[in-house]
């Protein structure tokens, strides 16, 4: 027996040989040793039998029913007229609700005795004049930014109305909450808005002032009605229902 056969190879080399590893089966020294060494040869045989048994381990029945397919995706509706109408329902309804809400709030006077629209108009028309009256000189800045004339007309108004630039609601709220305080600005407003009719009496003037809000509310109602009509016309008729 040669030295080669007496020095046993690394067991991992025998395991590689049992698995027909290309490196192992081309290793002549290893092959020669196994051929002459009963112990190593027996080990390789055992490992080959083991591999063969492993290779025939059976399949197993799953422990629970498996879903063989992913869930079916939601079918996409064909782009028919019903689909289009149904899709129009939501935006129409939302727009109608918004218009109705805003118009209703404005028309019922929740924003104050004068609507924001007329306030805005007055601000636009009177801002340069108010600045001019207060300072004695035309003010381009006020005209440019549309700053509240009341804030520029008097120191008090200025203090109270700080931050009221182009903001209607706070201004209106201040007026309704403190009519006495707003009297002075209104006076200065009346002075500087020459040519405008400041003596319009209540009813007609109020209706005129709130006409925009009323129209908005009416438009909202109309949009809501249209949305409901579209909704009803787009729902397919359930012919399978027994009605019970």
């Amino acid at each position, binding site marked *: 027996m040669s030295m080669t056969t007496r020095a046993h190879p690394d*067991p*991992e080399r025998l395991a590689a040989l049992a698995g027909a590893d290309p490196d192992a089966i081309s290793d002549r020294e290893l092959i020669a040793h196994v051929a002459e060494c009963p112990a190593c040869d027996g080990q390789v045989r055992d490992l080959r039998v083991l591999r063969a048994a492993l*290779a*025939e381990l059976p*399949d197993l*029945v*799953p422990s629970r029913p498996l879903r*063989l397919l992913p869930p079916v995706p939601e079918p996409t509706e064909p782009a028919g007229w019903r689909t289009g109408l149904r899709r129009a329902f939501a935006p129409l309804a939302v727009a109608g609700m918004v218009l109705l809400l805003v118009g209703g709030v404005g028309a019922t006077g929740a924003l104050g005795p004068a609507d924001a629209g007329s306030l805005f108009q007055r601000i636009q028309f009177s801002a340069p004049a108010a600045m001019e009256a207060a300072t004695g000189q035309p003010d381009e800045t006020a005209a440019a930014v549309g700053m509240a004339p009341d804030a520029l007309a008097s120191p008090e108004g200025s203090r109270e109305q700080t931050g009221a630039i182009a903001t209607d609601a706070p201004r209106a709220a201040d007026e309704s909450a403190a009519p006495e305080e707003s009297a002075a600005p209104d006076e200065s407003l009346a002075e500087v808005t020459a040519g405008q009719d400041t003596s319009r009496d209540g009813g007609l003037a109020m209706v005129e002032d709130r006409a925009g809000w009323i129209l908005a509310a009416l438009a909202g109602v109309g949009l809501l009605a249209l949305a409901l009509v579209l909704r009803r016309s787009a729902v397919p008729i359930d012919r399978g229902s027994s009605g019970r």
Partner: protein
Amino acid sequence: MSDPDPSRPATRTGPLAEEAAVVAAAARGDRSAFTQLMEHYQGACYGLAWRLLGDPDLAADATQDAFIHAYDHIRAYRGGVFRSWLLRITANASYDILRRLQRRPTTALPEPEEGEADIADPRAVNPVAESARAELYRALDAALRLLPEDQRVAVVLCDVYGMDYHEVAESIQAPIGTVKSRIHRGRLRLRVLLADQRELFEG
């Protein structure tokens, strides 16, 4: 140990009849064809996942993940043995779960409890449970469970499911040399574990 009888009936799922046509139909989006394939191979996939994970619920999860992945990628299937393709996907899904569990690579699965069947899940019925080889299969599965995880995964993929070194390395994202070493050490360890049950390999 004696050489296994090559004439013994196969205990593994063979190819489906007209499998190529069914696979082609599934790749075209035929859901019933895909269902047919998965139904046919679910035992093979589940068996692999169970042997890798050692837990019936995790194995079912891995098999389910593999089916979803296969459904999403069957158009990319480019021929070859469909079973091998599906088993590679299952191996990857199982190994993903192993990684998610953050098990240590050398952690062995818990030993089966006293009196419990070697197959951890009693509902996982061995199709040849009544055959003379059933006990051998149970002993093999029990011995596999006792291997360190890294060796078990490598041996299962290579020796049980016939993947080559490169496929195993790709599945477990390890170098070829590492894969070889794990496989060889795993075989040696299995031989030691089964040394006192040599009679099971005879006949």
